[in-house]
C-alpha cells in the first residue's frame, strides 16, 4: 500500500485516502474545435504508460479533496516527489538518464 505525501496536507498518508486520476500534464487543447479527429483522439485516449518514471495525477479524496501530481516509478512504485497542479516536476526521466541512475530494483517484468 503506497504512502503518499499530499503537498496540500503536508504529510504522508495511506493510499486508501487517494484516488489515482491518470497521467498528469495533459492539458485540454485550448481550441478543441480546431483539433482534427486524430488530435482529439490523441488527447482523449493515448497515453505514455511508461515503464519507469511517470508523472501522474492523484486526488486526495478522503483528505483535502485536492488534486496534485506525483512522480512515481512504475516498477518500484517509489514516489520521488509530489507537487501541486501548475508546478513542474523536479525529477524527470530525462534528468535521471543524464545522471545514469539505474532502474530501481524489483523489476520483475
Amino acid at each position, binding site marked *: *500500500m503506497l504512502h503518499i505525501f499530499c503537498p496540500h496536507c503536508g504529510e504522508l498518508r495511506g493510499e486508501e485516502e487517494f484516488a489515482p486520476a491518470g497521467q498528469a500534464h495533459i492539458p485540454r487543447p485550448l481550441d478543441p474545435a480546431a483539433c482534427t479527429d486524430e488530435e482529439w483522439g490523441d488527447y*482523449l485516449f493515448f497515453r505514455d504508460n511508461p515503464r519507469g518514471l511517470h508523472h501522474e495525477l492523484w486526488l486526495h479524496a478522503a483528505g483535502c479533496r485536492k*488534486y496534485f501530481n506525483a512522480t512515481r516509478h512504475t516498477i518500484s512504485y517509489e514516489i520521488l516527489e509530489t507537487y501541486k497542479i501548475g508546478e513542474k516536476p523536479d525529477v524527470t526521466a530525462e534528468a535521471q538518464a543524464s545522471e545514469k541512475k539505474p532502474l530501481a*530494483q524489483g523489476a520483475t517484468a
Partner: protein
Amino acid sequence: MSQKNRLPRGGRIDRTRPLDFTFNGQRYQGCDGDSLASALLANGVDIIGRSFKYSRPRGIVAAGAEEPNAVLQIGASEATQIPNVRATQQALYDGLVASSTNGWPSVDTDLMGILGRVGGKLMPAGFYYKTFMYPSSLWMTYEKYIRKAAGLGRAPLENDPDIYDHMNLHCDVLVVGAGPAGLAAALAAGRSGARVILADEGEAFGGSLLDTRETLDGKRATDWVDQVLAELQSLPEVTLLPRATVNGYHDHNFLTIHQRLADHLGETAPRGAFAQQLPRQRMHRVRAGRVVLATGAHERPLVYGNNDVPGNMLAGAVTTYLRRYAVAPGKKLVLATNNDYAYRTALDWLDAGLQVVAVADVRHNPRGSWVEDARARGVRVLTGCSVIDVRGSKRVEAARVAAIDAVAMKVTSPGEWLECDLVASSGGYSPVVHLASHLGGRPAWREDLLAFVPGEGFQKRLCAGAVNGVFNLGDALADGFEAGATAAAQIGFKHGASELPRTEKRVEEPSFPLFQVPHEKPTARAPKQFVDLQNDVTAAGIEQATREGFESVEHVKRYTALGFGTDQGKLGNINGLAIAARSLGIGIAEMGTTMFRPNYTPVTFGAVAGRHCDGLFEPARYTAMQAWHLRNGAEFEDVGQWKRPWYFPRPGEDIHAAVARECRAVRSGVGILDASTLGKIDIQGPDAREFLNRIYTNAWTKLDVGKARYGLMCKEDGMVFDDGVTACLADNHFLMTTTTGGAARVLQWLELYHQTEWPELKVYFTSVTDHWATMTLSGPRSRELLSQVTDIDLDRDAFPFMSWKEGLVGGVPARVFRISFTGELSYEVNVQADYALGVWEQLIEAGKPYDLTPYGTETMHVLRAEKGFIIVGQDTDASVTPDDLNMGWAVGRNKPFSWIGWRGMNRADTLREDRKQLVGLKPVDPQKVLPEGAQLVFDPEQSIPMTMVGHVTSSYMSATLGHSFAMGVVKGGLKRMGERVFAPLVDGSVIEAEIVSSVFYDPKGERQNV
C-alpha cells in the same frame, strides 16, 4: 493412551495440566505447552496423513512453518472446521479434534495407496497434460474424479461463529522474529525510545533460543529471553505481538501481521468482559519507518531414497521436540548431515538417554567442536557418507549409509543398512528470505554459506541474524543489536551501548554442498527421492521436467508443482532448484529462486476481511425519512450506496399492484416521494455561470435568478454522463442537482476541471446533498395540498413552472422548486435535513384529505418514462450522445467556449446518422411488456446470428395509458417513426412493437405547467 514418547523430564510443557484431544477418532492426551504435532509424537502417532498423489504414508517432518505433511483438519463442530492446519504451529488445547485430510478408509490402511503404488508409475510430473484428451466429452468426468482426489482439507459447511478484526499500527521500527537477533534488535531500538513492534509467529518469544543447548552468560538461553522480555514490556513504546506472523511485506513499508488471539485457547474465541465475542484472529496493518527482518533460517532436509517414510525428520526438529516438548520421536537415531550445527541433535539425543546409531557426515574430515563432542561421547561418525536409502513402509526400520562422491554424484561404497527408527537429516540452512523478497527483490546466492540471503532491497529494511547469513549465535545477537540500533538511528533515535550476553566459544567448520544424495541407480530408477513432500515432487520428476525442456526455475515449479503447496516450498524449494540446476549443468545462482509472494504462511479469509462483512460490508446510506419509510413498509432498492424506497406495498399488494396504485394516485391526486438522495452541489462565485456553460452541454448565460433549468453533462468524448436541474439562487450562486449514483462523481468532475484546467475561474463547489432533504409532492392536487402548509404564494403566475421560491413549509424554512419529473404539477420541497422528518410527517398528515400517497422509485420511473424523461445509466450507457437521445435541444451549439463534450460529439462516428437513437416503443399487444434489456431486430424471421438494431432500455405497464409501453434505442430510430421492431425473447416468443415518440403522456407538457 499413554504418552509413550514423552520424556520424563524437561521441556517447556506443564505435565500437571494434561489436555485431551482426538486424532482420527482416537482419544489422546498431551500437555499444556504442547503443539498438536508434539502431542501426536508424544503419543507415538507415526502416520499423520497420506501423500497427495501417491497416497504414501507420511509423518511429521518438521517443527515449524516448513512442515509439509502434518496438515490436518481440525474442529469439533461443523461450523468450527479449519482445513489444513499445520500441526506444528497449532497449540494443543483441551478438546481439540483433528483428523487427516487424506487417506481412505483410514490413513493407516489406505486403499488409494495401492492405487498410488500401481498407478504412481503412470503419474510422472505433468502426466495429466498428456492424457484424458479422448474423447473430449469425457474430460469433465475424469475431472470430477481428479478433483475428488485432490485438495487437502475441507471447508466448513456452516457459517463461522468467530469474528476477526483489524488494527492499524504505526511504528518506527518493526522487528520481525523474536529469536536472538530479533530480541537484540528490539532491545536496541526499544531502548532508544523509538516506537517498536516485535512480532513472532511462535507460541512464545525466543526462536531458536527456546530449544538451544547453547548457553548465554553461562546460563540457560531462555533466562536471557525472559530478562529481555521483561525489559521490553517495561518500555511504553514497545508493543509485543506473540502468535503473530508477519505474512506480507507490501509497498512503502506496509506490512500485515496475522495474529492468532485465540487459536490456542479452544474451538472458538472466548467472550470478553462485556460478554461479546472476542476476535479469534486479528490482522495488524502496519506502517513501519524501518523494518528489521530477523526471521531466522529453515533447515533443509537431504534428498535420499524413501526419505518420506514416517520417521524421517529434520535434525533441528528432532532437537525441538526433545528439548522444547520433551518428546523423543524414536529410540534409535541415524543422523545425516553436511554441517556441524546438526550435531547438536545427536548430543541432545544422547542427553535424553537415547541411542545414536551413527552420524553420516558427507564431509571427509569434520573437526568442529560439536563433532568432537559427539565423538567424545562415543557417537559413531561415518565421514564421507550419507544416508542413501531408507527401509520401512509405515515407519523407518533401517537406513542405508554409504560412502558417496557428492560432486560426481556417485555412491562409492556398498554401504550398510543400519537399524534405526528415526533418520534425521540436515542439508544446511536456508535463510527465511520470504519477506525480504515479497516486493520483487531477488535473493542472492552465497556459495560460502550454501544459502540464498536477502538481495538488495529498495524498501527501508535491514536484516539481522540467520536470515542475513549470520548463523553463529553470538554473531546473530550482535547483528540484531546493530540492526535495531541502526534502524532507530535512521529515524532519529539514539541508542545506548550494547551489553550482550556472552556465548560459548566453539569451532564451527563450513558445511559441504549436498542436496540430492546420489544413489547407485539413475534418479529415475532409484527409490523415490522426495523433494516437495506435500506435492509428491521427486528428484526424478524434476529431472524429467528439465529433460522435457522446462529450464526456467519457474517452469520447473509450474510443471512439477514444486513449492505450490501450503508450505510454499519452505522445505523443498532450494533442494529442488539445486537438482534442476545440476541436471541443466548450471549453477544454483544462475538457476535462481522462484518468486516469493505473500503469504508467508496461510491467512484466514475472515482475518483479511476483518469486520467489513455482514452488516458492515459496505456503508448503507439513508435519508432523514428512513425511519418513516421503515415504519410504513417500504421495499428498498439499492442505488449506489443508498437504500431508497422502491415502492410502498399495502397488505396483499405485489409490486405491480402497488406501483399501479401509486401511479394512479400521482396522475389523479397527489403523491409524495423522498428525493433526498439526489446529489446537490452548492456553487458560488462570480464565474459560476461561466463554469456551468463549460461543463453542461446547454447554455446558462441567461438563466435568471429564481429560475431553474435542466442540464446534460457529457464527458469529453461527447457521451452523456449525468443530468439534473440547476437553479440560479442568486447571480453568483447556483444549486446543481445530480443523479443519485452520480453525485460524488460529478463533484469530483467539477473539481477536476476547476483545479487542473480552469483555476482562474472564481467559483467554489460544496456538496450539500446531506444538508438538504427533498420531498416531492406531485400530482394535480399538489398545489392544493402544499398550500395548506406553506406561506409561499403558489399561484401559477407568482410561482411558475421551472422556478423556485423560499418560504415556510410546515413551519420550516424551505426552498421549493417547481420542477417535475413525473409530468404532473410538482413541488420539490427542500428543507434542512434535521427538520425533514417533521415536515414529511406534517405533509403526510395534511395530505390525508387528499389521499396523499407515498411512492417509490419504481413509480417515479414509470411516470417519468410515460413522459419520455431519461434516466442516465438506464436509458444511456457510455455510448450515447445527446443527439442519440433526441435531446439536441439541450446542446448549446453556439456557445462561444468549446464546452466539454462538444468536440467529442463531432467525431466521424458520433456524427453518423444511423446511430442508435432513443425512441418510444409501443407493443402491438397492449398487454405485453417488453423485458428491459431485450434486443430488437427489424426482421424476426432471420436466422441466427441476427442483426440486432437496438434494445429496450425502459419498459412498463402503464396504469395511466392502459397499455404497456417502452423506450429503447434503435438504429436510425428517429427517422423510423411508425415502423415496427421485434424483440425475440428467450422463450421463443416475439414481441412486436411500433416505433413511436418517446413521450407517451401529455406531449405538450400541459399538466406540469398548470
